[in-house]
């Protein structure tokens, strides 16, 4: 029995004349993910991509699990290909879904007749196919409200398809359809989630991380690299920038008031990140901040931080609770890496009593006490770049 994977678009289907550019990007992403599994034939029609393996024995389970991580897909299902002949559809529905039916108590049939030339109308297909299934599996009863299994019969241009319940896709827009942005990646729980959320909206994410040896260790950096690698599952290939930050932190500690340390540090990080973003052709910065989570994430503190930014700073977690963030981190598998207990540059020299409501003028005056321009240039020059690719 020939099997295909049907991939249905999410909100992309609502796009107007530029819809095809989104579709092309999505198709490219899908092909990139599936290429290592073998050769497939891709056909696109009516907001659906049909993915048909060229060889028998292709691992479709694996293909589906990869597709579930591709943004831009609303639903995925495996379907059996039938002739556009009702007898064939009946026969294959019973054989293809045998196991599913055996484990279920109730079912219903839905029909989609995209090809209006098909002699039977949708209600008729539902009725007749339902009858066939009931006869083949007498233990099943029909329940149109809450069935265990929903059988869908789709009659399309060239073939008919039979499938049962569909899987939810990753949603969002295809990667790369919305330009590029640079994520400030600390190694904590929040930043990978922030990257994931922006990638979901089609943004290609690059990452920047600050290291301060000997205050931070090789293991801390390694942990962030692991996070980058894990992020490639959803975010595709990730460019990772690692900035040497020791000198700047030491200068800050020496010359500036302790209570402003964190905010000044964040401002300097933003300045460096903007320079890297320009090199990387990233149009915006992304952070994992959430209002009020820590002292540097109060509204006042964010105003002071943003004052040095001339590109937009996206904070997709801004209105989320920690528990909601952790839920996503677990789902995308970054949580276990994030909780490895190594010092990162944000936890070095934390002030005992940070200013919760800093005033911009005072912050600017404090920053002027140190000479950072040269150090920033040095840090940007000393930045190392590494590319993390999707692993198959």
């Amino acid at each position: 029995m020939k099997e295909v994977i049907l991939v249905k678009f999410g909100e992309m289907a609502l796009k107007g004349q530029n819809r095809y550019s989104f579709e092309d990007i999505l198709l490219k992403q899908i092909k990139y993910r599936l290429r290592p599994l073998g050769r497939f034939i891709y056909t696109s029609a009516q907001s659906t991509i049909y993915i048909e393996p060229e060889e028998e024995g292709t691992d479709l389970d694996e293909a589906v699990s990869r597709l579930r991580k591709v943004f831009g897909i609303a639903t995925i299902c495996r379907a059996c290909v039938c002739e556009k002949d009702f007898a064939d559809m009946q026969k294959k529905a019973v054989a293809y879904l045998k196991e599913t039916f055996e484990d279920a108590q109730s079912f219903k049939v839905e029909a989609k007749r995209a090809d209006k030339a098909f002699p039977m109308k949708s209600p008729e297909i539902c009725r007749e196919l339902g009858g066939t299934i009931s006869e083949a599996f007498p233990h099943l009863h029909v329940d149109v409200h809450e069935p265990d299994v929903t059988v869908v019969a789709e009659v399309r241009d060239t073939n008919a398809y039979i499938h049962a319940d569909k899987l939810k896709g990753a949603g969002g827009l295809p990667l790369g359809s919305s330009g590029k942005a640079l994520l400030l990646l600390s190694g904590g729980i929040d930043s990978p989630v922030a990257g994931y959320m922006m990638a979901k909206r089609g943004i290609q994410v690059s990452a920047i991380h600050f290291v301060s040896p000997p205050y931070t260790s090789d293991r801390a950096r390694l942990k962030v690299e692991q996070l980058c690698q894990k992020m490639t599952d959803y975010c595709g290939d990730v460019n990772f920038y690692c900035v040497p930050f020791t000198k700047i932190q030491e200068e800050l500690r020496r010359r500036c008031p302790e209570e402003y340390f964190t905010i000044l540090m964040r401002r300097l990080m933003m300045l460096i990140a903007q320079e890297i973003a320009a090199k990387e052709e990233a149009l915006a910065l992304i952070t994992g901040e959430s209002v009020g989570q820590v002292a540097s994430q109060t509204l006042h503190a964010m105003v002071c931080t943003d004052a040095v930014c001339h590109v937009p700073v996206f904070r997709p977690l801004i209105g989320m609770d920690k528990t909601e963030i952790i839920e996503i981190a677990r789902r995308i598998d970054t949580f276990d890496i994030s909780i490895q207990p190594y010092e990162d540059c944000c936890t070095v020299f934390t002030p005992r009593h940070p200013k919760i409501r800093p005033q911009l003028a005072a912050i600017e005056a404090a920053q002027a006490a140190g000479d950072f321009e040269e150090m920033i240039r040095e840090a940007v020059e000393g930045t190392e770049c590494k590319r993390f690719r999707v692993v198959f």
Partner: protein
Amino acid sequence: MAFYLDHAATTKPCEQAIEAITACLREHYGNPSSLHRVGLDAQLAMDGARAVVAGAIGAQPESILFTSGATESSNLALRGAASAYGRHRPHIVTSAVEHASVRETITALEAQGFSITRILPDENGVFHAADFLDAVTDKTCLISMMLVENETGRILPVAETFRAVKRRYPHVITHCDIVQGFLKLPVKASALHADLMSMSAHKIHGPKGVGALYTAKGIRLIPVTTGGKQERGLRPGTESVPLICGFGAAVQYMQPTIDARFAQTQDLRRKLLAALSSMDGITLNSEPEGSPYIVNFSVHGIRSEIMLHYLEQREIYVSSGSACSKGARSGVLSAYRIPEKQADCAIRCSFSEETTPEAIEALLCGIREGQAQLIHQNMH
């Protein structure tokens, strides 16, 4: 010339493994838990091996725990899952032909109060997924099945069973002892629908004293031993970094050739089976469609041990059953309803890619001459 035909008992470590172990002993002597670079170095070496082992079964590196071998892996898997999930579901399903490491662990759990269902094959010696599925109930916490049975090489319907069990009883934890199938048949954790899988290094040209346990994401185990936080706290104690590196090197050496080795040994096995079935006084205990790496047969009237030592004189090394049972009568063969007298005469030969057609010839010749020379005992 010597012919080693006991690869299911153990294999000779490959050069790559030996090299990796010595290099690691010399260079990566750090404790992977130390914070400094020497420690990190050892951890990175270990992480490399972890990724290789994980890759070989299509899993993520974090799903692999290193242990001292498959026996420890299975103990941790079964005892750990039974204590985590067994409180309200005190029932375990398993096959009647498991290796001692699983069989005895489950017997120990039985003594603790678990009820056990042991599934037997049908009268033809074939296992059916439906029999396992029928035994599972709402009170079942765990099902454990081996992939390739180690005495006759029968392949159990693990994927089919686990898939059906997971569909109907998603709460049941599935464990598979894949020792005799690992890197011999294509094994993938997801395709097998296994939550836990036990592996051993020394069956695949790696060192003795190291193995691994695969744990699927979200599976909770209660550790059997207590101590430090190594291996996610599930296997406390400083990791044996050199042996782990040797394990990784062996996997790397074996992985690319799964298909080629399968075809090669299958060819040898077919020839051996054909020759054996044309001989008088021989009964096959293996099935033609079993693992190509194992053949078990009985030579009428000559007890296993006598034939084994006779062949040994000719430098042909075979086994009288599972090496782990050290000559005790096998309960596995009786599970297949093989008569006692026939089981007492059982010989197991097991192959690797190093096995040549000459070895098979020498074996056949040895058996023929043994049949002629040795004094037969009454079979009835």
